[in-house]
């Protein structure tokens, strides 16, 4: 590729341009309240399988959404067409909806203006990464696998986005954000190994390190033995822990809590997991995807959600926050899970200290079975092993699990410090690898 004219994309919507677009709406709106949000995304992905590129895409999509309210009647319209005529039509559509929509008892006007903390969300090296860089990284992973006579499938992606929020009460926020991702599944015949990374900086994807880890997993996964379903001690790698905790975090909705239809009903302020577990939002952390403000126009702030096993926060919208008297609404876009007093070290150190356990690299297709007690199901994937007397002794055929994180994390036998974890179905977290005394596997599959 030449990197010539075709790769120079139109400039992303800048702060001043967003202010201009927002003013175009705010000065002409007839509504009592008007709010404008921007999401301008330029993203690309090199996707590979069977050791060659099968998709190589680059997409620019800008979206402007307008919400108008007359009293408690509100409506929202959005467009991807940023011409003046289209934006006026979008405003008119939002006004039309708002005029004839029924009164919304939970409606609240836009948040009061406030300064948002400036975070390092835009990394120039990622914003500048284009198809050439993505292809180079893909080729690096493929080359390692070819040398080992293995098959690589995965993605390298990078994106730059402009995000903005503005309202007719003076609220204004603008942020440029970057995102880079790498994931790789290595196939060694019927066996697979996996590794993944996500970071604001494309320089932190650690392609070689992750590729070698996936290759090692794939090789170790050959010739799996079949073990019967049942309860086992487990050593969960960070991605597996993140998979379970993501569902726990998704279930913290305050409205469901208030209606009594939450697995946490009546448990706010009570201990819900092991008393050494801490769950915090750490938006300043360089390895997480913290932001300065949310799509609702609220600041993202550091907060503690689970303090030594005790549930201290619920996930509020502005209405439930008002009912509960919560002034600073906590967010959880940059989660860090930690175990107080956990020994530092790596997964390998946990293996050495483990007498017998099933080691799980990752879970797949996790879904709720019973929302009342947060019973979940899902499959182990891409690296499931039997650990005995401090060593991995064999690959094992994949299990289906049937358990609740609210039971499984009641007691933790051992843990590492938090590490980067990203899965194909969830966002990025910092979580420890953990050894749990018992986890329920309900059936076995054929591989």
């Amino acid at each position, binding site marked *: *590729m030449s990197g010539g*004219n*075709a790769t120079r994309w139109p400039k992303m919507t800048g702060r001043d341009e967003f202010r201009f677009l927002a003013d175009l709406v705010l000065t002409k709106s007839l509504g009592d309240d008007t709010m404008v949000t921007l999401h301008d995304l330029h993203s690309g*992905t090199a*996707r590979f399988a*069977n050791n*060659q*590129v099968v*998709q*190589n*895409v*680059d*997409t620019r*999509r*800008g979206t402007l959404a307008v919400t108008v309210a007359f009293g408690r009647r*509100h*409506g*929202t*319209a*959005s*467009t*991807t*067409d*940023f011409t003046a005529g289209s934006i006026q039509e979008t405003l008119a*559509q*939002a006004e039309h*909806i708002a005029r*004839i*929509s*029924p009164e919304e008892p*939970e409606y609240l006007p836009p948040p009061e203006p406030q300064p948002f903390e400036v975070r390092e969300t835009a990394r120039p090296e990622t914003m500048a990464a284009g*198809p*050439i860089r993505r*292809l180079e990284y893909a080729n690096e992973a493929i080359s390692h696998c070819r040398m080992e006579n293995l098959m690589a*499938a995965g993605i390298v992606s990078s994106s730059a986005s402009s995000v903005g929020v503005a309202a007719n009460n003076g609220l204004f926020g603008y942020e440029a954000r970057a995102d880079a991702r790498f994931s*790789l599944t290595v*196939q060694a015949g019927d066996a697979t190994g*996996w590794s993944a990374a996500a970071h604001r900086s494309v320089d932190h994807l650690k392609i070689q390190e992750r590729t070698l880890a996936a290759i090692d997993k794939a090789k170790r996964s050959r010739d799996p033995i079949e073990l019967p379903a049942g*309860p086992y001690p487990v050593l969960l790698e960070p991605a597996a822990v993140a998979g379970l905790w993501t569902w726990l975090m998704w279930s913290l909705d305050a409205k469901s809590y208030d*209606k*009594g*239809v939450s697995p946490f009903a009546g448990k706010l302020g009570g201990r819900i997991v092991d008393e050494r577990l801490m769950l915090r939002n750490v938006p300043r952390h360089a390895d997480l995807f913290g932001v300065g403000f949310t799509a609702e126009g609220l600041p993202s702030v550091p907060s503690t959600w689970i303090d030594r096993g005790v549930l201290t926060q619920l996930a509020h919208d502005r209405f439930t926050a008002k009912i509960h008297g919560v002034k600073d609404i906590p967010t959880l876009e940059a989660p860090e899970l930690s175990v107080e007093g956990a020994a530092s070290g790596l997964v390998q150190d946990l293996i050495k200290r483990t007498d017998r356990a099933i080691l799980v690299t990752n879970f797949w*297709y*996790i*879904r*709720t*079975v019973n929302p*009342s007690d947060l019973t979940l*199901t899902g*499959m182990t994937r891409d690296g499931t092993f039997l650990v005995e007397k401090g060593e991995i002794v064999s690959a094992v055929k*994949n299990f*289906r699990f*049937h*358990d609740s994180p609210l*039971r499984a994390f009641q007691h933790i036998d051992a843990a590492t410090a938090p590490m980067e974890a990203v899965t*194909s179905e969830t966002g990025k977290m910092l979580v420890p690898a953990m050894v749990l005394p018992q986890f329920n596997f*309900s*059936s076995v*599959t054929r*591989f």
Partner: protein
Amino acid sequence: MASPSWEEFADLALRRIKASGAEYGDIRIQRSTTESILGEDRRIASIRSIEDSGFGVRVLYHGAWGFAASSILSLEEVPRVADLAVEIARGSASIAVEKVRLAEEPIHCDRIVTPVRIDPATVPLDQKTSLLLNAMEALHGRRGIVRSTAEVWWRRDRKHFESTEGSVLDCDLLAAHGAISSTALHEGRFATRSCNTPHLRKGYELIEEAALLQEAPRVADQAFEKVTAPAVENGQYDMVLDSEHLSLTMHESCGHPTELDRVLGYEANYAGTSFLTTDKLGSFRFGSPHVTLVADNTEPETLAATGYDDDGVACQRWDIVRDGLFVGYCTNREVASKIGEQRSRGSNRADGWGSMPIVRIANIGLAPGTATLDQLIAGVKRGIYIEGQGSYSIDQRRYNFQFGGDAFWLIENGKRTHMLRDVIYHGITPEFWNSCDGVADRTFRRRYGFITCGKGQPAQSGWMTHAASPARFRNAQVIRGEGRS
């Protein structure tokens, strides 16, 4: 100066692709209009009108793909994006080992329009919000109900496709959907019962025919009956599954494993691969002789019946499983040629202008049998009748699955008795379909659409419809969906 037409933009892009020396290229210009009205707990929580427009250019250069897309449809942007797609394809070609070869397809010039009796855009908004508010009121008027939802949704897609081969296709497609649900609380437990119109390519008549307001009392009463019902006991049960439930079971265990791109490893890093490897085609006993699965992308009103797919291939009808034998895949022009098939099945679809099309599950349906629903139930000594969709999960090769449902009734001695709660069954796909010993007749056939089928990286949402009549399965393994069963 008037803005150029979509045809003129397409011509501009295709000229540049042809000049680059690429062997194939196409452009899709699309404008999608969506209206979504969501009700929650007796209030209208949101009304959104979404206009999403843009174009995507796909180029095959020396046997490798490049794709670029933009929401800016202008005389500057179209040639720039077309050139970028060529450059990206050149990059892909630089490390290509096996070159992509497209299966042959006749040139098509056509226009496809969804027949609509009532255009949902012309239905007054307050008529729709009143329906949802009244339905939620009816739900909350019943015993034990603490939460409710109600929804009306529709989307119109206007699309122009042109390829360097000469195909020119215009589509004006519509789909709609409506739903209500209620959640009952009892002794600290809660359970939800729902009622959905299927997602179909119909107008607002779909919502009217569903009679959501009239259904609301039944839905609410069954939510309470469900939460107060006894929990199922673990064990083996015969199962009679209704059409809506089967649509999800078929989607996960029959649809996905028959996507040929998965079989060939394209999805190994995300959605997974498939146990239905190419050596099994024509010889593998997928199900019992009662099981015939037909892919039909030509059936009117179904989501994948778009006239042509995003390869420009005409939609078709073919068998996936015939009398229990696995006989067919869902393919596109790229993967069809890899297994020696002369023509694509026409199942290559993108979820919008910004996505590259990938192989998608067709409208796969279970062919009707000869029984009635009562006859299926009468043939069960101890079993469970399941309606609707609930929890679902399946492994990355589509062997080991687990499903719940929306409502469960115990069958004893050939009679449907009382409701059960927390029913979960799991199994291995071919063993399960080989245990099918009866399918109800055509009068029981119903269709259910999916619009959130996740696949691909970047992730895309696929649309398709699955039709079935109720069917019976023997000796399924059932566990209680609570605690450590």
